[in-house]
């Protein structure tokens, strides 16, 4: 974290230096272009990193399962109360998913995908960039709450650069807010009692 803070300080200083130096050089990128570029990069990353795969519910369409983009990135629908998890037979099957792909059951328990829209009460509307960065870096909600559960690929996403994380956050804050209170995860089943 010392490293992060120092990097941040350096970035701030370099940014200040560039802000001063750039007008002299006459090569300043207009701020609006920079913001648009950041937004576009965030949209690109969200698209190719598979965020919609789990955070946008699947519905059955005429051609089969498709993403319900009216609820884009709003997580597990609160209206869909899941029945008890299925009990898997012994063997190599380890996890099951709801037809929406927004509820997952495995050895970790049952996880429900989060609402990533900027709704202030049920999504990320009150989050700061640092809350978002701390979540991805530490695998804990906002860096200090409960651990983020599978299938969220935290071990991979924690390697995102600060710039990528900022772009993703900027894009997520720009999408339509959806009010959807995602339920909390459920613990794994109790191990069978010893006979």
């Amino acid at each position: 974290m010392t490293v992060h803070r120092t990097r941040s300080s350096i970035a701030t200083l370099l940014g200040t230096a560039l802000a001063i130096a750039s007008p002299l050089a006459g090569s300043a990128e207009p701020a609006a272009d920079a913001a648009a570029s950041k937004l576009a990069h965030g949209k690109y990353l969200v698209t190719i990193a598979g965020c919609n795969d789990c955070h946008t519910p699947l519905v059955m369409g005429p051609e089969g399962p498709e993403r319900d983009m009216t609820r884009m990135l709003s997580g597990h629908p609160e209206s869909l109360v899941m029945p008890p998890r299925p009990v898997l037979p012994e063997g190599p099957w380890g996890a099951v998913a709801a037809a929406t792909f927004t509820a997952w059951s495995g050895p970790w328990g049952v996880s429900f995908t989060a609402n990533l829209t900027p709704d202030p009460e049920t999504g990320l509307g009150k989050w700061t960039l640092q809350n978002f960065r701390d979540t991805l870096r530490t695998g804990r909600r906002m860096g200090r709450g409960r651990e983020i559960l599978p299938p969220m690929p935290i071990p991979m996403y924690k390697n995102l650069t600060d710039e990528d994380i900022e772009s993703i956050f900027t894009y997520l804050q720009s999408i339509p807010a959806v009010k959807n209170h995602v339920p909390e995860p459920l613990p794994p089943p109790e191990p069978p009692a010893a006979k």
Partner: protein
Amino acid sequence: MRIGMLLASLAASLAHATQAPEPLPSSLHDTGLYAEPSGLQVRPENRGFTPQYPLWSDGATKHRWISLPAGQSINASQAAVWDFPRGTKLWKEFSVDGRRVETRMIERLEDGDWRFSAYVWNEEQSDATLVPSDKSRTVSLPGGRRYRIPSEADCRACHAGAAVPVLGFSALQLSTDRDPLAPHAEPARADDLNLHELIAKGMLVDLPRELSETPPRIAAPTPAGRAVLGYLHANCGQCHVDPKLSGSAVPVELQLAHDPSDATAGTKTIHTLLDSASRYSSAGAADARLIVPGDPQGGTLLARMRSRDPRIQMPPLGSAIPDLEAIVLIEYWIEQDLKNNQETSQ
């Protein structure tokens, strides 16, 4: 010319910012805590202190010390956000069943940042060794109990979100008006540093006059309410704090950190607890309340304090055993004081 000077100044600042701090010593003995290279006598300039509302650490016994750079003082003009001088160090020693297990250290570096570390004690109890900070470690204690040494990220989870990363050394915690009902209250030791001595010796400056003249005390309508608010401040307030006070704080509406300069802070917290819906809700259970007056089983605050399921528990880390003494206190407060409206009638 002016631009050139600015750039030169920035370059100097950049050089300062990139100056790496000294690496942490591998031995606790080299951190400056002890007087002798191999003994366990604490240096006299490292002063012990005992906060009146201790953090629950699964029953571990704790000793705490602080070292301020010679001739420097803490600025307390913001009563709830003390500004510690660069070079400040604090240690906290954890013992279980009479054996030292770990000692944690936090220090303020020259660039103003804070550094966190943990040292684990050896079998002989003669020294403690720096633990790599990348991930938490679990050690086995005699009797088979497992004990978790925090990673640096774990340390920051609690300390970095607070208004100031030093949690147990504050006007309220060091007040000489100590709460006799505080769960796990430890009696102050004779040579402990307290608020009165800090002010008298010039180690603390600019504390608002009302706090320096009258020792801080949580104003609550009942004795149990005072102890509950103190407990929640010490165990929850590091995250449940006004986000404006810390850039990395979580955006919580339930704020439990106590501002000793606000005489109405206790009443405000009680009303927040009673008026707020819980943001936590299990599947199919919407509109949960934090607290239901008269019904200790009815709210999510105690439900999460009772749980040690990592998906549910509060605090979310740092404890594997529920704090029964605190739970009983809060149950009493909800069942008696809140039911009888003693907390809300004033």
